[in-house]
């Protein structure tokens, strides 16, 4: 108990100089033009990690003095944080549902725009210890399958796919696959990492999660197109944004031709 209190105090002490730093860098930024609030906070689905990180660099180069901060977690976690008043300026969700809820709660400013589409794939370790050659093999007993948490879009899509497969492959397929689940991970990237580390035999991820980083450790098994889903990613500026101007510019940038090319490079399908 005592050590926790101590740790809390240490954490607090660390926060104070950090916030001091933030202020001073903000003042430096004023010289570079712009002025006012120069921080933009983007909450984005974890599958957007690589693409949005690349876009961030370009955006910051174009807007000298702007500090772009991004938080990548499951869309459902981000939604909860936004509902609890987290200071975010933009929300990019991996599913329509989370964005719809945010809009219903009056948290979104303007109309959300769909900016990319994505599909799911099955990923297995390069060594493929469970010997999964096609999607149907997923129902074989003993496979260690990892899914994202209930409510995380990637997992909800996986369940949708299994539901469709049930009617095509026959009784029990869905149940057999689900009985192979050994862990539910916080977001889709965490479940892909389980496979990259070789501890899980398979997981569901997005086509865009097959990043260069993991290509030598992970193999992709395609899901038959008639069973697959199309994930649509909506993006919107948030009502409580303190930098509405910058928020709008980020949304415009992501949906611009240039932004779309970067998204395509990271295996997303353009929205239009």
């Amino acid at each position, binding site marked *: *108990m005592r*050590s926790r*209190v101590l740790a809390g105090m240490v954490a607090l002490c660390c926060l104070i100089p950090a916030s001091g730093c933030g202020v001073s860098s903000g003042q430096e930024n004023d010289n570079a033009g712009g002025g006012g609030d120069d921080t933009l906070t983007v909450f984005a689905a974890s599958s957007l990690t690589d693409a949005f990180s690349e876009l961030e660099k370009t955006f910051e180069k174009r807007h000298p003095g702007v500090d772009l901060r991004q938080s990548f977690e*499951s869309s*459902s*976690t981000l939604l*909860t944080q936004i509902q*609890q008043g987290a200071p975010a300026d933009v929300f990019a969700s991996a599913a329509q549902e989370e964005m719809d809820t945010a809009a219903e709660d009056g948290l979104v400013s303007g109309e959300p725009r769909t900016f990319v589409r994505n599909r799911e794939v099955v990923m297995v370790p390069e060594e493929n*210890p469970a010997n999964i050659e096609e999607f149907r093999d997923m129902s074989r007993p003993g496979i*260690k399958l*990892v899914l994202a*948490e*209930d*409510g*995380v879009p990637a997992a909800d899509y996986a369940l949708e796919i299994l539901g469709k497969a049930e009617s095509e492959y026959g009784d029990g397929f869905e149940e057999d696959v689900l009985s192979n*689940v*050994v*862990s*539910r*991970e*916080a977001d889709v990237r965490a479940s892909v990492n*389980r496979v990259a*580390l*070789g*501890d*899980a035999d398979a997981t569901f991820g997005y086509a865009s999660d097959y990043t260069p980083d993991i290509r030598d450790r992970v193999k992709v098994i395609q899901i038959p197109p008639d069973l697959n889903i199309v994930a649509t990613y909506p993006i919107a500026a948030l009502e409580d944004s303190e930098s509405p101007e910058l928020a709008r510019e980020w949304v415009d940038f992501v949906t611009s031709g240039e932004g779309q090319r970067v998204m395509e490079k990271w295996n997303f399908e353009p929205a239009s």
Partner: protein
Amino acid sequence: MKGRVSRRRGFSVGDALASGLGVASLALLAGFISLPIISLVLWTVNEDSWRAMASPVTRDALLLSVRTTAISMFIIILVGTPAAYVLARAQFPGKRLVDSLIDLPAVLPPSAAGIALLLTFGRFGLVGEPLDAFGIRITFTTVAVVLAEIFVAAHFYVRQAVVGFSQVRRDVEEAAMVDGAGRFATFTKVTAPLAFPALVAGAVMAWARALGEFGGTIIFAGSFQGVTQTVPLAIFSALQSDLDAAVALSVMVLGFAFVVILAAKFLLRKAADLED
């Protein structure tokens, strides 16, 4: 000189300021700790999230936490007690190193501990790979949860136990041995009872740490209801979909922890009374 005079009078601006500062600091700290706790309870009452306490997810998480921390504590006490006694009494080469090694998990961020355990017991780990050849896998099992708990919590028990044993005077032990008691009997009848308050305090700290263990477990053991999803993981998981359930679980574990702290305090008082 002046200071001493005024102190004797029991009244000085400095003293008043010092005690005022102390009281204010204590109030600040107590407020800082109680406000979040009050918020948790208020939310539960206002949002009527009691029903979430009866859900299967909550029940499984609580049962798993009770089960795994009980096993972890059993192993920690079984192995940690003699280990602590050796650390307190014996001199041997490399003692400082071993001593620091035991403290290491307390300083290591739990997430780093989780990765370290994964690289050891995971399928391609130092120990995990040979085990895998025998068809034994540790990740994603309850065993992994227990290992993570022992890894992060053992320090808290061993550290306190070493202090407790060091405070038992050697001549008391020697007197018992002169009276014909064997080494083992001396330990169980004399040393351990004298060190009892320290052992209980250490066990409570270790148990609290094991109960709160999160980072190591989620990275090393994964998260699955009834198998690896302990209370902290269930709280994190509930945040994805059901804030009420997350709050309800937090309140439950809060009450649970409170009862254990009170019980430990009671035990310690009892032990002190016995000594008198």
